[in-house]
């Protein structure tokens, strides 16, 4: 949210100004947004929209579809292709993402291991929330996730593009978790504890 212009700084977005004193001090603006803009290094959930030869086109919620090469998976070779169909969900990170070029994604990190990235399995539920909520959920000790995990066991994938994928044992449990996560945006901690207490009492 801050930009250098000439000799001074220009604030380009509205939000709270934050400061981190560690390591030389960094200033940034915390803003609420729903639209995602691809950034290098971000882990996102993408939906496969097309297969064009050796490359998959993924919809990541930005202005352009991202491209993902079939060799960018762990253990993939020219003979051993990954089994990706149109409509699959893929969790990967951006290796190229600037304003002038089409974004490119990979499903392996710099050492060649997949570390949790790759095709997301069957079932589960994908939904979209604002970017601010994702940042809150990704914070090291997130209360929401701890409280929810006491409720039911579930699998969760968070994409920085605002997309969350949830899978619990039954469809009903999955939907309950989805509703709570969506409502977390506007509820205070107090209201959330009340809602969870009501549910775990059931």
């Amino acid at each position, binding site marked *: 949210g801050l930009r250098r212009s000439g000799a001074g700084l*220009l604030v*380009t977005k*509205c939000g709270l100004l934050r400061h981190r004193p560690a390591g030389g001090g960094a200033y940034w603006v915390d803003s609420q947004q729903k639209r995602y803009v691809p950034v290098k290094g971000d882990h996102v959930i993408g939906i496969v929209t097309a297969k064009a030869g050796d490359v998959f086109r993924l919809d990541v919620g930005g*202005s*352009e579809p991202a491209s993902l090469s079939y060799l960018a998976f762990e253990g993939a070779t020219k003979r051993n292709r990954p089994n990706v169909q149109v409509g699959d969900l893929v969790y990967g990170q951006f290796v190229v993402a600037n304003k002038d070029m089409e974004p490119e994604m990979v499903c392996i990190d710099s050492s060649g291991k997949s570390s949790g990235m790759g095709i997301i399995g069957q079932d589960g539920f994908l939904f979209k929330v604002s970017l601010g909520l994702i940042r809150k959920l990704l914070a090291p000790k997130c209360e929401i996730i701890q409280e929810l995990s006491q409720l039911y066991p579930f699998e969760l994938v968070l994409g920085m593009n605002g997309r969350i994928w949830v899978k619990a044992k039954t469809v009903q449990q999955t939907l309950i978790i989805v509703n709570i996560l969506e409502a977390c945006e506007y509820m205070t901690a107090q209201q959330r504890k009340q809602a969870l207490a009501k549910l775990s009492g059931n």
Partner: protein
Amino acid sequence: PGDTSVLAGLYGPAEAKVSKELPDRAALEVLLRPKVGLPGVMERSREQLLRQTCEAVVLGVLHPRTAITLVLQVLSDAGSLLSCCLNAACMALLDAGLPLTALFCGVTCALQPDGTILLDPTARQEQEARAILTFAIASSERKVLMANTKGSCSVEEMQQCLAAAQRAADTVFQFYRDSVRRRYSK
């Protein structure tokens, strides 16, 4: 006061059609829908005015080859419609988190036949006025981004209206600040 309302929706940066995309900046499009009837020539000219004002503040160079669409729906019109649209557009840009170099606000002045200046006139006052001037004023040093005049007035009168509008702009910017503060304090 307070009867004119406009609903603004902003979409973008999204994929632009090849015919519309610009190679170095975002293509901004404004759609203004009146309360009743189909959009006519007045709406088109207002759309262009709004588009050029917004292009001056939005940092389009950060999102080349994309399209930003702003849709404005008039809910009720009781005078000063153009400045209401300007304010709605600015709040929409702010809320969506698009990078802006400055904020802007719209102020309308009506010049009555006896020479007095009225700010934010109602429809009735607009009818009786000799001239109606609308200014879009930027938040940085209160510069004028856009000026639209209907009717005739002298240069001094225009300067007076401009000074009054710049003072009134402060109230509007304070309102922006309060709304945003309320949103982020939740």
